């Protein structure tokens, strides 16, 4: 899944032709960023040299960035790129950022502007991120990802929640209240982790041999 649709197609003739699409695009992005920064700091005081205002440095930097962009743009028209047009892929960036977004939206109840997300906790946010993110690779296999999700999630619970004492929501609130009403955070965490590990073992046992995707571990000789 690759796209090469850059705004201007390279032509080999002289004159005003794009010779390095990479540099032309890079230059345009830098100029756009510079203009954006200038626009954002437009109504902030620049101050004088004696009392430097908040806008002075950002604006100066933005001008310099714009200048760099301009140089790159010119270079893109004059010099040929050392390597061809960059190959982009969409599957990786889309799925990975979608899975991170999903993790952010489900890990904890939170207000995003007018939106409110439901707290699902690590028990659901973790496996979802792993499985959906895992499909960013074209070689993804569901069973492998499921096993990874069911072992890595409890491992992270124990590492971050239990050992490092960082507060991470484990379960959806209503579920944790119903199941572990009187229990402390840590013991409910341990029980959840144990359940997930058990699930991993069960999945491993009962789907064995269904996909030929065992990790090959070769033997290695080490002699001292």
């Amino acid at each position, binding site marked *: 899944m690759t796209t090469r649709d850059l705004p201007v197609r390279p032509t080999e003739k002289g004159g005003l032709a794009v010779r390095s699409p990479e*540099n032309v695009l*890079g230059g345009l*992005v*830098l100029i756009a960023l510079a203009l954006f920064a200038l626009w*954002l700091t437009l109504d*902030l*005081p620049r101050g004088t*040299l*004696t009392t*430097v*205002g*908040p806008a002075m*440095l950002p604006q100066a930097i*933005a001008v*310099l*960035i714009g200048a*760099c*962009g301009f140089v790159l743009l010119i270079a893109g028209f004059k010099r040929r790129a050392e390597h061809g047009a*960059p190959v982009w*892929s969409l*599957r*990786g*960036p889309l799925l*990975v*950022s979608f899975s*991170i*977004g999903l993790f*952010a*939206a489900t*890990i*904890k109840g*939170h207000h*995003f502007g007018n939106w409110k997300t439901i707290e699902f906790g*690590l028990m659901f946010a*973790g496996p979802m*991120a*792993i499985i959906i*993110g*895992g499909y960013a*690779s074209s070689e*993804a*296999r569901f069973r492998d*990802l499921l096993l*990874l999700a069911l072992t*890595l*999630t409890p491992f*992270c619970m124990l590492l*971050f929640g239990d050992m*490092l*004492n*960082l507060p*991470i929501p484990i379960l959806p609130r209503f579920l944790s209240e119903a199941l572990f009403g009187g229990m402390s955070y840590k013991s409910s965490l341990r029980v959840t982790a144990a359940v997930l590990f058990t699930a991993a073992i069960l999945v491993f046992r009962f789907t064995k041999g269904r996909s030929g995707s065992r*990790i*090959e571990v*070769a033997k*290695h*000789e*080490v*002699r*001292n």
Partner: protein
Amino acid sequence: MFDLLSNLFLGFGVALTFNNLFLCLLGCLVGTLVGILPGVGPIATISMLLPITFGLDPVGALIMLAGIYYGAQYGGSTTAILVNIPGEATAVVTTLDGHQMARRGQAGIALGIAAIGSFLAGTVATIVIAALAKPLTGLALVFGPAEYFSLMVMGLVFAVVLAHGSIIKAIAMILVGILLSTVGVDIETGEDRMTLGLSFLFDGIDFAVLAMGVFGIAEILRNLDNVETRDVVRQTIGRLLPGWKEFKQAAAPITRGTLLGSVLGILPGNGAVLAPFASYSLEKKISKHPERFGKGAIEGVAGPESANNAGAQTSFIPLLTLGIPPNAVMALMVGAMTIHGIVPGPLVMTSNPTLFWGMIASMWLGNLMLLIINLPMIGLWVRLLKVPYQLLFPAILMFCCIGIFSINSEPVQVLMIAFFGIVGYAISKLGFEPAPLLLGFVLGRLMEENFRRALLMSRGDMMTFIENPISAVLLAISVLLLAMALLPSLRKNRDEVFTE
């Protein structure tokens, strides 16, 4: 001299407590574990593991982070030798002869000499740091805001000159980093800048978020594009301890590499990155049989590996004494220190001597541990090299998500690593490098602060940067360097150093 010994004694007193020893060991192990994974370099490793040190006390956290750093470096060389995939730029040199040695069935010797060379280099570098810390800190205390500003400019110019590829792109990345650092509420006037009215940007962009996005996530996206051809050595690893003959062959390159690395590492700007390249070309030049290089010459592993480790270690000097991170890894260290409430700089040594000397002592201990634990564990590491990437990256992804969430319990920050991941992916597709961006981001805040303070002190006179002799010299060096780098004839030379 006596001072030095008593300081080191103090340091070892701190580093040898059970707790800190354990953290150092843990850092080394975890660092190696993650650093060894193909396609995960030291910067990604540290930014990924940064959150797990948050719960510790500052001394322990920094000791563990330093351990992670050496471990990641060590793991990187192992991958370079066994799989021919360099985890970062500096490991490229190790792949040349190290992997060839491995193919000839001498993987164990290559790994062994790399570890021993690194340890010896680390020992010398630790002494260099301890000896130079005091005088340099004294120097730093004379520095006013104008000198600091100029020094940082020089550091950034060094970083530009030593970056790979296009110079103009490296400059642009540093500038973008500085621009990003100005997002958030202005410290002096309290007005919010470029926040788009988003409340989570008022405090500025979180350093860990930027680092993890641009390195952790973007690296996953980049790796997914490259169809991986992993060339894990199939021969036996062979014996690990080099024999007397190999030792004699490697002794001189280790010494030269150590000296070269120690000197280059001190330079502000990423001098350490040059060390392995310089050592390799030096060894090749003075060798009686230069044709052996590239075909498995032990000097080509011993020299650069020592230089790399020495440089990696002495690059702590500008950070610890002047408070200026010379490269992206050290920028991460600044981030970690700030999170623990320590402002890196000349004052750390006097106000927090146990932290300062404890960290230095733990550097040596970390190197020793790596030597002792890692050689017997090679078998395990080899197995780790075989984990397919399609299982590796979801794990890294998950770790980044939880790690960043655990810092502030803020889902928005998790979203932001996705954003910066895409940004990092896009900029590398356009031929930019993300490391200068991170460095610019960290130095940006310090630069603005010092720039404003200097102008305040001189009542708005820009000449203060030139009238002040130290500042003038530093700026002159920067201008000279930049001019030289932009000259076409010298640019060719620079490219040759990197491609060789």
